């Protein structure tokens, strides 16, 4: 009898905490959103406008007409998908033996890989440019994707995931006379599916947000991904605060949608990946 009001109170407290914290975390994004929806309003009015007082899509219409969004978004999707597919494919291949095989030099390779995660390569951008050029890829999407087509982080993640796979699985596959490749493809990969989902999502976001490297290797601005294209809005002649805000919102929406849609899968994924 006395429990009910208490539970309601608790629930209210929980929601209050959740909402306060949400404003703290989302504040800057909400501010950008409000700014983009309120053309003609002082962006730097105090206190910052977290919620719009009126809504007008002028900025969106104008920036959409100023820049070729469909093209840039399409470029971004292609680049991001290429990155996701290549990362999944190569890191699954590379990580598999590091996790389940026994061979000489295995630990050394792994240690070397992890070591590179902390080493800052000062002239890395210049050297990678030379490599991409030597491979004859300059100016294409592959030049954008290839340098990060497999990352040590992902190999690390996949290795942990494969390590969590039961040993009997591979043995039973061998008993049935399957090749290592078949065991990998048909028995092992399904088990690490959640980890694959994680890589997919993280790579998608990473590729979506990368802006400097694409500008370095692409010669034609028509090939730019959205993050690179948006930096044109920051020039001294094209500067328009509302447009920058609207462009930013447009570019973030797809990521939020992807995040919402994959949330369940993603969580299963990380747990599978780290458990190992």
């Amino acid at each position, binding site marked *: 009898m006395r429990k009910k009001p208490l539970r309601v109170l608790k629930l209210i407290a929980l929601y209050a905490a959740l909402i306060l914290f949400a404003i703290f975390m989302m504040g800057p994004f909400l501010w950008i959103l409000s700014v983009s929806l309120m053309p*003609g309003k002082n962006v730097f009015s105090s206190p910052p406008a977290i919620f719009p007082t009126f809504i007008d899509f002028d900025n969106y219409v104008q920036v959409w007409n*100023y820049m070729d969004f469909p093209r840039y978004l399409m470029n971004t999707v292609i680049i991001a998908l290429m990155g996701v597919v290549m990362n999944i494919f190569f890191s699954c291949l590379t990580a598999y033996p590091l996790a389940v095989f026994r061979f000489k030099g295995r630990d050394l390779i792994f240690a070397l890989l992890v070591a590179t995660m902390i080493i800052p390569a000062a002239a890395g951008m210049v050297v990678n440019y030379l490599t991409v050029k030597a491979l004859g890829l300059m100016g294409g999407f592959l*030049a954008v994707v290839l340098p990060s087509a497999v990352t040590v982080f992902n190999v690390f993640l996949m290795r942990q995931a494969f390590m969590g796979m039961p040993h009997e699985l591979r043995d039973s596959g061998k008993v049935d006379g399957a*090749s*290592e490749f078949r065991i990998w493809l048909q028995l092992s990969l399904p088990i690490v599916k959640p980890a694959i989902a994680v890589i997919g999502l993280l790579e998608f976001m990473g590729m979506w947000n990368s*802006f400097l490297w694409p500008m370095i290797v692409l010669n034609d601005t028509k090939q730019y991904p959205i993050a690179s294209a948006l930096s044109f809005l920051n*020039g001294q002649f094209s500067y*328009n605060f509302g447009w920058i805000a609207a462009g930013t919102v447009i570019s973030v929406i797809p990521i939020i949608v992807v995040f919402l849609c994959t949330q369940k899968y993603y969580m299963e994924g990380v747990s599978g990946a780290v458990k190992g």
Partner: protein
Amino acid sequence: MSFKGKRLISLLLTSMLMVGLLAACGSGSSGNKETASNGNSDGAKAGEQVTVEFWTISLQPTFNDYFDKLIADYEAQNPNVKIDWKDYPYDAVLNKLMTNIAGGDAPDVVNLNTELANQMGTKDALVDFNQELTADQKAAYFPGIYSSTEMNGKGFALPWYTGLPVLFMNKDLVEKAGLDPENPPKTKQELNEWGRQIKEKTGAYGYIFTMEARTLLEENLPFLTEDYKKAAFNTPEVEEYVNENLQLLKDGVIPKDIINYDKQVQYFASEQVAMSLSSSPFINKIKTAAPDVYEKMLAVPSPVGKAGIRYSNTMNIVVPSATSHKKEAVDFAVFVTNAANQLEFSKIANTLPSTVESAKDPFFSENDGTLEGVAKTVSAVSLDKAEDFYIGVESAKDVNQTVTKALQEIYLNGADVKKTLTTAESDVNKILGN
């Protein structure tokens, strides 16, 4: 064994195929560039087709029409030259230029600011215009601006569009402080007095002070000795000037903050500051960020320090020495920066030209009464005395950074004035090689 082997081979093949396929679709667009530059490598003879790669910073798509016409005109006059115009965002252009030069893909004509042009020029990476240009051609530019990219007798760049500082005021705040915007401050001293009064009467900051090293030069306090061999800023005069600013900081006349361009916009747009020294693009930033503040914005001639100079901010055109078509590149650089083309660009971009002839156009003296118009006319009058901020030594950037850091230490971190100047002095002397 054979079954397993096959599988492994197919695995390898799959991955190879993947790389190959992606490579095929990736390299398609890069192909034409290769052929284009191969087709006209070094020593292009007259009549042979030459492609000149021309880079600008953040001008597309706003000025596409202007450049399309400019290029069409040039190509019509020079049928053997094709101009390949590329425009990159400000954030990427330096990295892009570095990697391209490293890869042997240097562009032929590039748009750079004065600091970068000097930095590259001192490393012998740019064509010397003093060698390429006739005296008449050189005389077309304002001598102060042209000499901002000259060192050891070499001219690294042709000046292009430029901007000069204007004092922007928030009319409401200034009037609230009981000051008359019709009779604006003319010297730094008067600016300080105005600032003090604004602080007292309104609580807002007086004006924005950037704390950069160049502020010393504006007060006629040189960094270096005349022979550029030694630091010269550890003097009682500099100390006095710095202490004066410290007092202004303490009194809240200027904000105690590292000021970059965005901060300047924020302070002015949120009406936290009454006055700001900036050039005309500032108007556009305020206009789009704070239309209500734009309405009460006034432009007046910028007050000058003891040196009486107003530094311009110039965009230049350079020709990297790695170019394989020096003659055509220089010719096109001259064409882009000639009086007629600069005048036209200034008109559409609302910037100032760096050529004497174009500045005579009534466009720069006729005041249409708008904020943009006033800002243009009040700044254009000092074009003939204008020069960009520049320290005439190879390691200018190092020297500048050392002095700026020392000033930040004093103004923001409360470091001892004398001690900090002495340390900075010895650091600069070390940079200069003694």
